[in-house]
């Protein structure tokens, strides 16, 4: 005769999900059958213990209690989603990162002739920080960016923004001549 049922198999037998080969053992093993009968009686007894149902009025009262208890709690937002003060900080971080990239962009070496007036953007080495910047930037909307990068009244940015297209072309020409003289 094969070995007796293991603990998990007794549970399977109680729930009519015992493997066929083990069921064959159970069908011929008086000890296992007696154990199953005892467990089944105990299970039936446990199932028979009912519990009082609260008044129907209780449930609305309960919901009110939970609502009152959580009223002072902030809604639990996942940590990776900027919220409250973190949002403007994230905007500022993205802008600061962009400024740093512009400032520390490698200058073209004198012995390499540029074939275009447009300086090619060199992607920095991916050290993982760009992932953070990109992640933060993806959470921003247009209003956030506009709020942070808005030109301050009276500054050069603001004045340039007010120029017409012709005036900008003239300014660009003057700047090129100035740079070319140095």
């Amino acid at each position, binding site marked *: 005769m094969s070995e007796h049922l293991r*603990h998990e198999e007794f549970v*399977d037998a109680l729930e009519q999900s015992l493997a066929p080969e083990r069921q064959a053992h159970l069908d011929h093993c008086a000890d296992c059958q007696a154990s199953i009968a005892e*467990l089944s009686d105990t299970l039936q007894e446990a199932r028979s213990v009912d519990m*009082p149902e*609260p008044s129907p009025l209780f449930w609305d009262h*309960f*919901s009110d*209690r939970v609502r009152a208890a959580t009223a002072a709690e902030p809604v*639990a937002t996942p940590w990776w989603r900027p919220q409250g003060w973190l949002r403007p900080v994230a905007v500022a971080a993205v802008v600061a990162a962009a400024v740093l990239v512009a400032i520390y962009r490698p200058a073209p070496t004198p012995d390499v002739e540029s074939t275009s007036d447009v300086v090619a953007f060199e992607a920095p080495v991916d050290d993982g920080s760009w992932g953070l910047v990109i992640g933060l930037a993806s959470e921003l909307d247009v209003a956030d960016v506009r709020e942070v990068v808005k030109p301050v009244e009276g500054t050069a940015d603001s004045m340039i923004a*007010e120029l017409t297209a012709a005036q900008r072309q003239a300014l660009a020409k003057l700047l090129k001549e100035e740079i070319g003289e140095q």
Partner: protein
Amino acid sequence: MPSGAGAIRATWQVQALGTERAAAGTVSPGRSTPADLADAQDAALVAAFRAGRRDAFDVIVVRHRRSVYQLCYRFVNNHEDASDLAQDVFVRAFKGLARFKGDAALATWLYRVAVNTCLNRVAVKKPQTTELDAASHVDNRAPNPLDDVLRLERADAVRAAIAKLPPKQRATLMLRVYQECSHEEIATALNSTVGAVKANFFHALGNLRRMLGTS
């Protein structure tokens, strides 16, 4: 004709409006009406809650309060403690819903919170196994009052025996017998394995049988 700066501003505003309209046009749980939420799947309710809608959590409470209360009641065997515990469960759920990964059913996750809350409570407070309120809910029109008394006494004995089970066996028995969870759901709720759950269930029934046999 707008100036250069004006044209830039106009373009900027059109883009901004387009972005806002596009966002409004998407199916955002944060823009649903409460009536919509009442029929929403649990996952949609969780998403709406994470998007800042407190009323989504109200729907979660309405949907799961009965089963959570019943599980708590099985642990403490009295209404006052069970309602306090169930409230604690939902407050913890409110605070922790951001950590809910969605890889299990919300009900299973709530059971997990409930079991932890109940085990923490009963560890510091002796469980009450008899309650006068319970007797008041019994149908006194039973044919034989003596049978009724015996049945009540036996039910009390079973509750007392369950209260004496080791925590994991007790939680397993309650989730399987009274909440009708599958072994897989119990394993998730108790951070265990299906094999361990079945073994705990077997030992819970065996211990119950021994205690009831000597009572």
